[in-house]
């Protein structure tokens, strides 16, 4: 692998809501008073319309901003909470990114290492073609569990390939050990965990150091030269202890974001890597370790190109795009943990005609409309005849993706009648810069804070779920820019 191979770009996404852990603890204190000890900080909380796919897609958009998407030859999507067991989840993300059909995709799952294992595979590919690794996670946890406190929802994306890498791989090593610290059975909704002290002593403290030693040795890098050590772990003080055992400076141990985001599962090692890359300077060495029935370890060296990389949202921007949420009941409802009286309006059949979806997949999944070659009018959706009354040309339109076109509010309402899992439901007409408009659902709205002219950005979200058949339908919504 030459000097021009490595991490070309990166991105991240955390949902805007941050559930206050003290709200979780307060609601459950009658039953699990011990949770008070964990009642610090906040965790990222997915909206009702977000899942591993939508979050990973947002991270991928962040990663690919300003880049030629046609260069992406492969997309790997890592998660232990893929919405579909059998429908290529990565294929949905690929369609939403309009990556085209000449693309290899892979869903990676089954462990908290899914994100790093995908990245390691991409880095080992040797083809030099661009591979996008995206990871998203939206885990459900039982009410009053420690997991409910620790977990957060989020996503990250890393682009690997030939070009001007911002970081090069110095070495990678994986250990695989069937150490079952926790598991989630095929039909189970939630994780089942063993004792934390055992996980710490026999798991982290024995397995991770082996992996670190191996990767440092292979790369001939001294541990004290590591400037960023990224290792997700929800157990207290394990990160510094592992670092100490491996000879890594204490100051290099990076914040796990436990206080501000929570642990985003299979995405979290990549979330921490992106966070490190956002703060790194040329020459920095980043060591990433991911624990989960073994350990993936990857060592990177940051290049001069990091200073020329366009600014992005990443983890820092995601952390700043924050809205405090203290409503634990809402969290339970969004995660389908309580049987809300949703009313008769919620009872309509949500069956999705797959033939219709397939014919219109670029429009629905990719938000692709048309632009008239005859008169230049952008329009959504694309019709057989141009919508411009002065034109009305037949079959004159070329595909025009609208997802990344800035928009603004033309009219809006806050609707308390229509069924919404998060009422009142905001929606309205949005006008795209340069032409085209659509009546769109809004999302991530602060109640009472919408006005005509407000800048908006389109985001890929769950439109409806069909619980009778287990189908999730996605579409684009407008969110405050």
């Amino acid at each position, binding site marked *: 692998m030459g000097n021009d191979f490595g991490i070309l770009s990166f991105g991240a996404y955390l949902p805007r809501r941050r559930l206050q852990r003290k709200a979780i603890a307060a609601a459950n204190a009658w039953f699990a008073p011990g949770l008070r000890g964990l009642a610090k900080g906040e965790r990222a909380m997915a909206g009702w319309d977000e899942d591993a796919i939508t979050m990973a897609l947002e991270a991928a958009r962040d990663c690919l901003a300003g880049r030629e998407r046609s260069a992406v030859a492969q997309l790997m999507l890592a998660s232990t909470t893929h919405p579909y067991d059998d429908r290529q989840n990565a294929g949905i993300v690929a369609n939403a990114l309009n990556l085209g059909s000449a693309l290899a995709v892979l869903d990676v799952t089954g462990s908290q290492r899914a994100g790093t294992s995908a990245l390691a595979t991409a880095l080992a590919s040797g083809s030099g073609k661009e591979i996008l690794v995206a990871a998203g996670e939206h885990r459900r946890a039982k009410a009053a569990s420690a997991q409910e406190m620790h977990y957060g929802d989020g996503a990250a994306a890393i682009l690997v390939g030939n070009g001007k890498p911002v970081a090069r791989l110095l070495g990678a090593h994986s250990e695989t050990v069937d150490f079952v610290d926790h598991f989630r059975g095929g039909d189970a909704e939630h994780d089942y965990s063993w004792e934390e002290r055992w996980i710490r002593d026999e798991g982290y403290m024995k397995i991770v150091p082996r992996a670190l030693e191996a990767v440092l040795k292979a790369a001939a890098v001294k541990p004290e030269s590591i400037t960023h050590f990224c290792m997700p772990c929800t157990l207290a003080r394990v990160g510094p202890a592992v670092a100490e055992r491996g000879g890594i400076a204490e100051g290099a141990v990076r914040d796990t974001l436990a206080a501000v985001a929570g642990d985003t599962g299979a995405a979290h090692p990549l979330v921490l890597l992106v966070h490190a890359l956002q703060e790194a300077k040329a020459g920095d060495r980043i060591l990433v370790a991911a624990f989960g029935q073994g350990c993936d370890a990857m060592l990177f060296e940051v290049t001069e190109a990091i200073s020329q990389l366009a600014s992005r949202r990443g983890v820092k921007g995601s952390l700043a795009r924050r809205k405090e949420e203290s409503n634990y009941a809402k969290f339970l409802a969004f995660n389908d943990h309580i049987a809300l009286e949703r009313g008769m309006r919620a009872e309509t059949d949500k069956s999705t*005609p797959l033939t219709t979806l397939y014919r219109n997949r670029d429009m629905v999944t990719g938000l692709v409309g048309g632009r008239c070659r005859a008169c230049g009018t952008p329009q959504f959706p694309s019709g057989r005849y141009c*919508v411009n009354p002065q034109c009305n040309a037949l079959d004159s339109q070329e595909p025009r993706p609208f997802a990344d076109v800035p928009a603004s509010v*033309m*009219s809006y*309402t*806050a609707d308390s009648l229509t*069924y919404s899992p998060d009422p009142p439901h905001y929606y309205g007409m949005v006008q795209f810069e340069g032409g*085209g408009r659509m009546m769109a659902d809004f999302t991530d709205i602060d109640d009472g804070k919408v006005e005509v002219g407000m800048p908006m950005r389109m985001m890929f979200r769950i439109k409806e779920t069909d619980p009778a058949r287990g189908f999730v339908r996605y579409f684009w919504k407008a969110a405050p820019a």
Partner: protein
Amino acid sequence: MATGIRDKVVILGMGCSKFGERWDKNAEDLMVEAFEECLKDATIERNQIEAAWFGTAIEEQHVGKSGVPLAMTLRLPYIPVTRVENYCATGTEAFRGAVYAVASGAVDIALALGVEKLKDTGYGGLPQRGRGGLNNFYWANISAPGSFAQLAAAYRAKHRVDPKDLKRAMAHISVKSHDNGAKNPKAHLRNRITEEDVLNAPMIAEPLGLYDCCGVSDGSACAIVTTPDIARGLGKKDRVAVKAVQLAVSNGQEAQFDGWDGSYFATTRVAAKRAYQEADIADPRKRVSMFDVHDCFSITELVTMEDLGISAEGKAIGDVLDGFYDASGKIPCQIDGGLKCFGHPIGASGLRMIYEMYLQLGGRAGERQRADPVLGMTHNLGGFPAQNVSSITIVGRYGA
């Protein structure tokens, strides 16, 4: 060169059921209620009806599809029955079909009947229903009040109106319609309300509160139409003639092109212009005696009065607050209570509006009677501000 519909067809008879929550009645009962009144008024036999148009919008809630339910219910003698649906313009669409049939000379006497039985859903508001195939994938999760509420946001932004001023004018519209409905024995809502009631009502879709929204009702209305000569032959004096029936349907310009700003109905402006031309009305503010417009929501009525060219653009608030459209005002609007209080059984509404104009022109509107009306105008708006069907009907004294 087409000459339009003016004075080619007259109304021979009309009927209208009581509107409301008719828990003890089927749609078929409501149809018979309207038809019996209509047939007696027309002074003809059922077997003289040669063709019928049947309007119903949400048929899956009650009678089902096709023209069969009308023929079966009224025992019509194997005549052509056409079932029509065109959103909230459905009733007017049925009327248009019957009027055109007579005007064409194909038949002498035609029936138009509209019905809707909406109160079998188990919840308030319009029945929840699919939008059709691909629409379900990309249409926003809209409700009727939510789509019309956006008129207010766009209107405020365009005309730089203080939200409180607009809301107050909207409140006046509803108070006025309740006053009118109170005088109408067939109206669904007959209670009087105050401006405070409107302003303090629960929010439905910002800025529309409960009292900014019309009633969801069961009901039926119908008309029998014929030629002026046949009506005269049947001894009809003070014949009420059709002066104009116009329809304008969105083609995507509002929803997908860039000209429309969301604050008005592009279709209504087009339909109104064509209707005034067809009826030979140069200055509607001077000539139209009364209106029944599609006040599904208070804001709809407000902007519609501008789209019809009665209030100047951006000036409807002033006219409304001045009482211009009150029952005692210069040109009363919703003198029967409107959709707001007479109620809105979708397929019946267009015909219900014409029914009031017909009563007024015949001097039979009881407590609500206006002095010496000459022309009455009705309007329906079906769908959503961004894509809709707008219909306008003008009726008046034959020859006037």
